[in-house]
């Protein structure tokens, strides 16, 4: 399913943003709010894992049903998870398409990665605090 991904601040993400190693942050930032009808189309339940793929890459997130997003679009808290999908293109404005990236969603059994795993995949070295 192709949808438009919007990103932004949520309270749980904001509360834990200075503690990115915490389970609270990882669970707050790795969710994908999706309309229940779209979930039915995908054949998934609340809490299922889904893989989002966009122009910059792909990442596994936890689906959360929400009627505040429109059908055909999803909302992901800003952070390392949503940014795993966004490309660096700025159309000469300096600003990536953080709130307007088309993504392909498929259900998956793969686990949701941790922030450290995401960074390791990019060439980093995990720091355990």
């Amino acid at each position, binding site marked *: 399913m192709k949808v*438009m991904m*919007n*990103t*932004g*601040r*949520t*309270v749980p993400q*904001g*509360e*834990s943003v*200075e*503690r*990115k*190693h*915490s389970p609270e942050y990882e669970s707050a930032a790795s969710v994908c709010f999706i309309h229940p009808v779209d979930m039915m189309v995908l054949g998934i339940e609340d809490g299922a894992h889904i893989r989002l793929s966009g122009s*910059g*890459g792909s990442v596994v997130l936890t689906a959360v049903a929400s*009627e*505040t*997003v*429109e059908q055909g*679009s999803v*909302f992901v808290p*800003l*952070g*390392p998870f949503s*940014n*795993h*999908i*966004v*490309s*660096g*293109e*700025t*159309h*000469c*404005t*300096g*600003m*990536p*398409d*953080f*709130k*307007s990236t088309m993504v392909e969603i498929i259900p998956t059994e793969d686990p949701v990665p941790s*922030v*450290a795993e*995401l*960074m*390791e995949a*990019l*060439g*980093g*070295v*995990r*720091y355990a*605090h």
Partner: protein
Amino acid sequence: MLIKDVVCPFCGCLCDDLDVEVENGRIIRVDNACTLGSKTMVGDDRLKAPIRRDGKGWIETTYDAAIEEAAQILLDADRPLLYGWSRTHGEAQGIGVHLAELIGGVVDNTSTVCHGPSILAIQEVGHPGCTLGQVKNRADLIIYWGCNPIDAHPRHMSRYTTYATGFFVKDAHRDRKVIVVDTRRNESADVATEFVQVEPGGDYAVLSALRAIVRGRGDVVPPSVSGVSREQLVRVAEMCKNAKFGAIFFGLGLTMTAGKNKNVRNAIELTDELNRHTKFIISPMRGHGNVYGTNEVFTWITGYPYAVDFSRGIAFYNPGETTAIDILRRGECDACLVVASDPAAHFPKPCVEHLARIPVVQIDPHPNATTHICRLQIPGSVAGIDAAGTAYRMDGVPIRLKAIIETGVPNDTEILQRLYNRVREAKGE
């Protein structure tokens, strides 16, 4: 010990009415703050010492050794990028700009991935704004466009707008109308008098339609514009023109969607137009506590609010080229100093991949996503918690952040000054 009138450093609201209880050098209770602010202040989780990457692991190091290594990384670089700055105080930002000047680097701040497009729009058409107290005391119409204050600036409504009692607005609930414009029915929409739901990417068209109606050319507006009915647009335009004092607050819903700076320009020009009928102002909802301060400090030193490239000796500014995202996407910089921000979490993946390839030094108190990809991290104290300094509120009001606990950790100004001195000395000056 109870400390009163503490300034919260979290978001651009810079609420300065917090009561903070400190016991044995720790913050144990925060009153008056929103949950974002109080969690930031109470649950502060820091690196205890500088750390450096050693092969496949990490070891602690000293401040002296870390500053020496950071200086060498910057001295060895041909095109260093100095990025971040929005969570630290102005004094540190100033040294950061001078460090970039000294080494011919690029210095950019987090507005580049926040309200950078708003700055571009302001540079085209200006900015009719005011301090937040003007809104609190006078505004009878508030518009939140592409932003969600309840989640991102939780006290904005109670301190400055919807619920705030003002001199000319004694009964805020009754005297003020609120319009929320967004692509989704967010939490803020629930308190609105009028919710305008725009199709994704439709803001520019909706703003244009409103401008046409305000100018008396509603006849050119089709029955529906980006999912908004003409009837609703006419109603909104009338509410605006009939207001005694209207205030538009906008967020990343305009800067990060199709059109970007042109969306903001259109919103500003709508505000200009409304000033021919009544009093209207517009203001970006700035995110980080001191992001507006980075724009101010960069501007008085270099002339530009962000994305300044010193590689030619003079200050050169060309957003889209000298902006951090573009420099990283092109794989251009060969070293990066990150201060008081977390680009590995907030930059697109291709940019973070490049950061992971080059030496990155991070000056930040918290272990964060950038920690995993940097070579060296130097923890400083936190502006507003254990470091004092200047921050600028989203409306430009400068406020002094207080140090409310004593930790003995050097502040960013001290660390950067030592780094600056070391680089300058090594360059034989």
